[in-house]
């Protein structure tokens, strides 16, 4: 089976990895790089469980071919925390109980972070709109929206401290 080399800046680190051209970015991350934080849900672009950042944009990694990311920059859920220090969204998803089974959570956090990096004061309507491409079958979404709002508040507080 012919494999091709892919160079990526992954979570801030330059790496080389071999993949098959038919693999998706999701398969590259999970099966070749053992980064299993990114989850497989629907595998057709509807659920957002596999969300990662690719060249500054939020994408469904199940709809990206692995060789496409050659020369690009990818950030996964593993790159969201700073060492042992959780990102405010990770803290508030815990404190607001914004997860139950947890399979959608990495996708939600990557997606919500993409929003807060652009719009740190997004309101609840905007958060719901932004997260429309992420499905959760446990929480009913309310707690997720509250967690994102709480993360915004926490970041504002940290900025004024």
């Amino acid at each position, binding site marked *: 089976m012919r494999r091709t080399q892919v160079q990526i800046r992954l979570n801030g680190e330059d790496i080389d990895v071999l993949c098959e051209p038919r693999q*998706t970015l999701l398969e590259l991350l999970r099966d070749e790089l053992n980064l299993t934080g990114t989850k497989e849900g629907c595998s*057709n672009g509807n659920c957002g469980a596999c969300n990662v950042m690719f060249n500054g944009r939020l994408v*469904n990694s199940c*709809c990206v071919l692995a*060789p496409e990311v*050659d020369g690009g920059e990818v950030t996964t859920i593993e790159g969201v925390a700073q060492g042992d220090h959780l990102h405010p969204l990770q803290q508030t998803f815990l404190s607001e109980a914004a997860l139950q089974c947890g399979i959608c959570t990495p996708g939600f956090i990557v997606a919500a972070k993409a929003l807060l990096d652009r719009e740190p004061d997004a309101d609840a309507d905007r958060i719901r709109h932004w997260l429309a*491409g992420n499905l959760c079958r446990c929480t009913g979404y309310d707690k997720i929206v509250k967690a994102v709002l709480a993360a915004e508040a926490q970041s504002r507080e940290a900025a004024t401290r």
Partner: protein
Amino acid sequence: MEQIEYVRPRSLTEAYDTLSNGRRSVFLAGGTDIVVQLREGRRSADQVVDLKHVPELMALRFLDDGTLEIGAATCCAEIYEHPEVQAKLPALIDSASLIGGIQIQGRASLGGNVCNASPAADSAPTLIALGAQLLIGSKRGTRELPVEEFFRGPGQNALEQDEILVQIRIPPQPARSGAFFNRFIPRNEMDIAVANAAARITLSADGSTIEDARVAIGAVAPTPLLATSAAEALRGKAPERETFEAAGQAAAALANPIDDMRGGIAQRRHLARVLTIRALENAYNRAKEGI
């Protein structure tokens, strides 16, 4: 997924060359349909040709004459984040900002939306209403085609085997004109249109009559339709509710919808009328701002 090659042409010439190497090709822009279709075995190919490294296919700029040039692989988010596009072509923003969710918009292209030739494509009625032309290229040369002539049936487009959709070109819009797109889906986001419609209205100098109009409807026939009879019902008339109603009736009369899980025939015909009226009312409001 079956074994495939991945090729990344850096120029149009390279892209055209990849089409004559004897392999069965599929084009990759946003991949939001193609990657899924390949994995599910709904489409088969020897090579995937990634068009996102060909400069002409990633263009997004206004030419000196006011034409907007959109590379066929330019993603929806690039388009709706562009301040000049927002100011000059709000109807294009209507469409580009509701195709899929945020994750899809950062990848999916208008070129892909058009080439898929879905009767329900959310960019199609808008591009038709705005008078968009498609720039199609091959080794043999280039040709332009009005977007409404590109759709040949569900999933069928006018591209020949050796051709690539290079750009979508939106001409400068008439003075005193406004355009609007809307669709009906059962939820707020992330769905395929049960029906959709777009309209552009050009007002007379004093704003009292409709000088010209273009109306387009989608998901109610095998292809998106330019509703010329609806435009005829508008030309020379006062921009008021009764005029818009008549145009809505004319658009609905063109509808030849299917009955499927998303909607029935009667519902789709009804939606073609209502969405046309709403598109016209909102297009009129936008046109008034230009007087």
